[in-house]
């Protein structure tokens, strides 16, 4: 493959809705997105946008990134025909996009290598990041080690307990891990704290945001770096099946692996795009993180999008067994794909995800991240209802080793990590 990182976006309709005719005119997805951040950060995001617009078309930059993707991260990731799962479910033919096989064990490395390289070109020497499950933190710490940069990762204290192994991995890679105790001590608070830190130290620091969220240009930058997933799927499925898939599934928290999985199919209207949200204990309970199912339009963490919140706009303390999906918002491009009906978003409960986690392990010998298990769970419901000539691709966004202790606890078994 000559060029993995695609810079040319596919043709697409101009977003509908009100747009402000200002510098962030490109930062809108329909009515969503924008740059709702303190003035202190405005020049930093403008500088980032300018640098990105320059380097995304820079041949040397793209060559260097492609080499990193291929030689360091192990791309392209495999598209695997899940034959036993297909036969067992008795419906659509199922393929798994194996982002779990990437270096560091998840799709997060795609975005991080891109942003770290960009930060280096911008002359930044320090990376800061938020992390939920710890996968993005590990990926950022990895890139920082690779590029010889300083690294500080903010992680909700609650999550440092749920994902102790990843905390150790980050430290091993030379990063400082700061447990965040404010608010609900989970992913949203880690994002808030990373934003506060960036406000206080901008000159040498790049905020390596981990998902397709936050102020423009982050949702666009992160999406472009993750779009390699759908670019590869498209090529691989054409090679294997000679046609496009009928269904493409991915789990959604902020939505980076999902947008990466959807992006190059957005213009292919016959391909159904399904994002699987974390419903926690159910969308009719307060212990949920299913933003599209239970949230409403709002402004938070730099963007206009859907958020779980109360009637006065106070952000809700969301819950999911998955630390990586435990976020009260969703990326602005997903919010727009929902508004336009181009993608469908479905809630998946803890119970369904844990069952799917165990199912994939036993059926295919693949232990998925509990985040990815949300997409597997929906496939288990959907595939049997489809004809055998239908093709379904599910992105396994990460590997599940990090989750084994938590799943064991969920099943009432206490194991030492």
């Amino acid at each position: 493959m000559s060029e993995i990182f695609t810079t040319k976006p596919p043709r697409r309709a101009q977003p509908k809705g009100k747009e402000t005719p200002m510098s962030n005119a490109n930062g809108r997805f329909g009515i969503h997105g924008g740059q709702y951040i303190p003035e202190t950060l405005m020049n930093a995001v403008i500088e980032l946008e300018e640098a990105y617009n320059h380097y995304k078309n820079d041949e040397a930059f793209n060559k260097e990134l492609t080499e990193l993707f291929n030689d360091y991260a192990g791309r392209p990731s495999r598209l695997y025909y899940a034959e036993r799962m297909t036969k067992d479910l008795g419906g659509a033919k199922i393929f798994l996009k194996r982002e779990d096989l990437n270096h560091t064990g998840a799709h997060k490395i795609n975005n991080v290598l891109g942003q770290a390289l960009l930060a280096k070109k911008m002359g930044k020497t320090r990376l800061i990041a938020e992390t939920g499950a710890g996968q993005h933190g590990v990926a950022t710490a990895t890139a920082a080690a690779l590029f010889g940069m300083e690294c500080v990762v903010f992680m909700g204290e609650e999550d440092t307990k749920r994902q102790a192994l990843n905390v150790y991995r980050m430290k091993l890679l030379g990063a400082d891990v700061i447990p965040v105790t404010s608010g609900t001590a989970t992913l949203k608070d880690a994002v808030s704290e990373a934003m506060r830190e960036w406000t206080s130290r901008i000159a040498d620091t790049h905020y390596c945001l981990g998902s397709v969220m936050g102020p423009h240009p982050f949702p666009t930058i992160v999406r472009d770096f993750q779009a390699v997933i759908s670019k590869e799927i498209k090529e691989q499925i054409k090679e294997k099946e000679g046609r496009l898939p009928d269904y493409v599934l991915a789990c959604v928290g902020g939505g980076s692996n999902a947008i990466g999985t959807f992006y190059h199919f957005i213009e292919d209207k016959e391909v159904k795009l399904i994002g699987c949200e974390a419903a926690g204990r159910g969308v009719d309970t307060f212990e949920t993180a299913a933003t599209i199912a239970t949230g409403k339009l709002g402004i938070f963490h730099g963007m206009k999008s859907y958020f779980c919140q109360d009637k006065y706009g106070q952000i809700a303390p969301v819950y999911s067994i998955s630390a990586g999906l435990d976020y009260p918002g969703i990326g602005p491009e997903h919010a727009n794909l929902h508004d336009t009906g181009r993608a469908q978003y479905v809630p998946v409960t803890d119970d369904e995800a844990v069952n799917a986690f165990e199912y994939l392990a036993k059926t295919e010998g693949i232990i998925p991240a509990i985040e990815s298990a949300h997409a597997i769970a929906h496939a288990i419901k959907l595939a049997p209802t489809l004809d055998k000539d239908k093709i379904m691709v599910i992105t396994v966004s990460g590997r599940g080793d990090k989750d084994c202790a938590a799943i064991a606890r969920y099943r009432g078994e206490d194991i030492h990590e």
Partner: protein
Amino acid sequence: MSNIRKAFENGKAFIAFITCGDPDIETTKEAVKKAVENGADLIELGIPFSDPTAEGPVIQGANLRALNAGTTTDKVFDLVRELRKEVSIPLVFMTYANVVYSYDPDKFIRTCEEVGIDGMIIPDLPFEEKEEFEPYCKKYGVDLISLIAPTSENRIAMIAKEAEGFIYLVSSLGVTGMRSEIKTDLGAIVKVIRENTDLPVAIGFGISNPEQARKMADISDGAIVGSAIVKLLEKHGKEAPSYIGEYVKSMKDALR
């Protein structure tokens, strides 16, 4: 002319920030009255938000205490109605975009006008996004106050030209909170602001003692203090208003 001008007519202005509902609405009411009695020229009333990303630990704590005490936007509007029976100095809201957005911006800003709020400060609403609320602010005559930061540089003129009420100049990088030293070359920033607007300029973030306030006021039109006052509420709870009165007096005296 905006009512906010009045705050800058008694020498250098002292602007006090108080988070509404910390520890309860009744204490906020007393604290505001004490601050006014002791010389505060303008009060910034914070409507608590669950995730105040521009605040340091002190004001974050106040937001949390206020929300845990059951403070809501409607209760804050009621508080302002009560305060307006006795307080005539300019009052502005300080809150986050989602608090205004979720209430319905038209209804929120109409209610501001109705209860007697003169302006609002929204730290997560930069120049590029002010269209979100500005049309309603103009419709109801509530000033949307602009912030200028040490990193604003080439943006200062653009922001100042369209600003209303007063210019809130952020003294330092980072979030709100007390600082031992303010290193930014604020004089140079104020100069550029003055070239682009006649509005008064007040400096906030990191100011806690009379010397700092004096220093800041020497190069601008006033000083804004938040965390130092909130700290008194954190420490003294319902007893805080008298301490706040004393503190405001010491600060305003330094500015006279």
